[in-house]
């Protein structure tokens, strides 16, 4: 009995130790959601307990967000920009990663280092001159500027991630196909890519998440409400002067995160493996 109880006690203690971390990680989401469902009367009642809803949940903040602001337009913009930037980046990243992982040609080492270095360049270093480039391209104040600029940080990421995956596909499989008469492109398309599907899914998921979450470029390159992405629209339009619509702000923060949460619930394991592969491989 004594032998069995000690591990159980240790196990319970582990969970007790984890509790503060879980509280820290999850409380902001709980509080955001709770606030978005409260009536204004309860929200601004300083005597009320902020941790629960006493006066019944309401959807009025969500209704206000959807009908009285351009939230649906921002979400559509976000989906468009994210979808296109992700597709472009995964395609460009895939072929570049294949070349870097498999082919020998002049400058391959330099290019590999270049990709790694750009992978580390933060967006906040370049947004000022990039705003000028966007202007010259005739894309100022347009969501298309984001479709063009997001690949600058997505392509290095996808390439870096996929190099690792392509290296796990044995060279012999590909060489066999080529001995059988397939061209290199056919071997890539029919043999290597199907074997690297987990890597492609991972790259697409991260590209989607990174561009959905991007903020500084979207904030800098767009200035009209109908071009905003969800993050920019919610932070810019729901605050008028000194009046904060806290209920709707929180509703916007919750709804703006929904697409990512859905992906996250279905692909948690890919997120975990991609996170470590991106940093460690």
């Amino acid at each position, binding site marked *: 009995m004594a032998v069995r109880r000690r591990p159980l006690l240790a196990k319970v203690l582990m969970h007790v130790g984890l509790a503060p971390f879980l509280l820290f990680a999850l409380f902001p989401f709980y509080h955001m959601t709770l606030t978005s469902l409260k009536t204004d009367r309860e929200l601004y009642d300083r005597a009320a307990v902020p941790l629960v809803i006493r006066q019944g949940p309401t959807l009025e903040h969500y209704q206000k967000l959807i009908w009285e602001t351009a939230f649906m337009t921002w979400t559509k913009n976000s989906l468009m920009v994210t979808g296109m930037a992700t597709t472009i980046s995964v395609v460009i990243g895939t072929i570049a990663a294949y070349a870097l992982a498999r082919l020998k040609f002049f400058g391959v080492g330099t290019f590999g280092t270049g990709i790694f270095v750009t992978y580390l360049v*933060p967006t906040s270093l370049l947004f000022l001159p990039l705003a000028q480039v966007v202007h010259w391209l005739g894309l100022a104040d347009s969501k298309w500027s984001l479709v063009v600029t997001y690949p600058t940080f997505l392509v290095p990421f996808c390439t870096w991630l996929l190099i690792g995956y392509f290296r796990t596909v044995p060279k012999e499989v590909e060489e066999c196909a080529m001995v*059988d008469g397939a061209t290199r492109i056919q071997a890539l398309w029919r043999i290597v890519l199907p074997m690297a599907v987990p890597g492609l899914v991972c790259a697409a998921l991260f590209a989607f998440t990174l561009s959905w979450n991007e903020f*500084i470029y979207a904030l800098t390159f767009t200035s009209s409400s109908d071009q905003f992405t969800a993050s920019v629209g919610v932070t810019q339009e729901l605050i008028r002067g000194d009046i904060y619509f806290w209920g709707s702000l929180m509703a916007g923060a919750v709804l703006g995160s929904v697409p990512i949460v859905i992906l996250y619930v279905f692909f948690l394991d890919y997120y*975990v493996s991609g996170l470590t592969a991106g940093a460690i491989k």
Partner: protein
Amino acid sequence: MAVGSVRVGATPSRAGLRVRELLDRERFLGPAFVTPALLLLLVLVAYPFVMALYFAMSNAFIGRPSHFIGTRNFVALWDSDSFRQTFQNAFVFTGSAVGSKLVLGITLALLLNEQLWFKRLIRGAVLLPWVIPTALSTLGWWWMFNSLYSVVNWSGIALGLMDPPGPNWLGQKYYAMTAVIAVNVWRGLPFFAICILAGLVSIPKELYEAAEADGASASARFWNVTLPLLKPVLAIVVLFSTIFTFSDFNIVYVLTNGGPINSTHLFATLTRQVGLESGQIGQGAAISLYLFPVLAIVVWIQLRFVRRQVY
């Protein structure tokens, strides 16, 4: 077998054959495959970077022709109180945030590495702050730190940890910095925990068994087995995080926008204020380039020590 049946058309034309032949040669296919990425990075990363250098050495102002003024912007910044404050903030912010994330990250990873109930669920919960859009989750923190309705203060007072009304988190200098650091730790901790966990999992069990057989205590096992073997992972995670914490924008922009009185400004937020809101592009570019030395050092360390084996 399946591959043998793959054919491009019935009778490929001469030109088609030539292209096919070229594409089979690594010397042609390689450059062809990296060209799109290369063009993108030249036009939208390398070129803007050169432009940033040019702007920083000019007196560029929105809508006015600019002249070359050498390093005067970089020097002039040191006369500005807001820049000196920002410079200091950047190091305080990065040092405290990365340090806290490292210590908490190791602790959390050690806990996650144990036999847990609902392991997947717990891991999912821990990683959540990292995947949610930062600008939006920071709005939630903004509300939690609100001067009148702060749930942080309400809980602190209810638990007897604070005297009413509690600190005005975003309105007072040191509290504002604490708040900004706390949110950065909240958002970056999952990255540390998950990467360190991956490092922990890869440590061979035999080492612990051997140490235990030699009579090493739990803390001795941690200091003499776990920590030395984690060093490479810790180095990479700290280097990555240093860059992205140092260049952080979203959290400060949403939470305090640099205030009160510049006490939480970071290079990125000050760049925006000076370069875009006041239109002094030259000065703004010079501020953003102060990010560069740290970036260069981290890249150099990574290339020299950490990734030497790859390229």
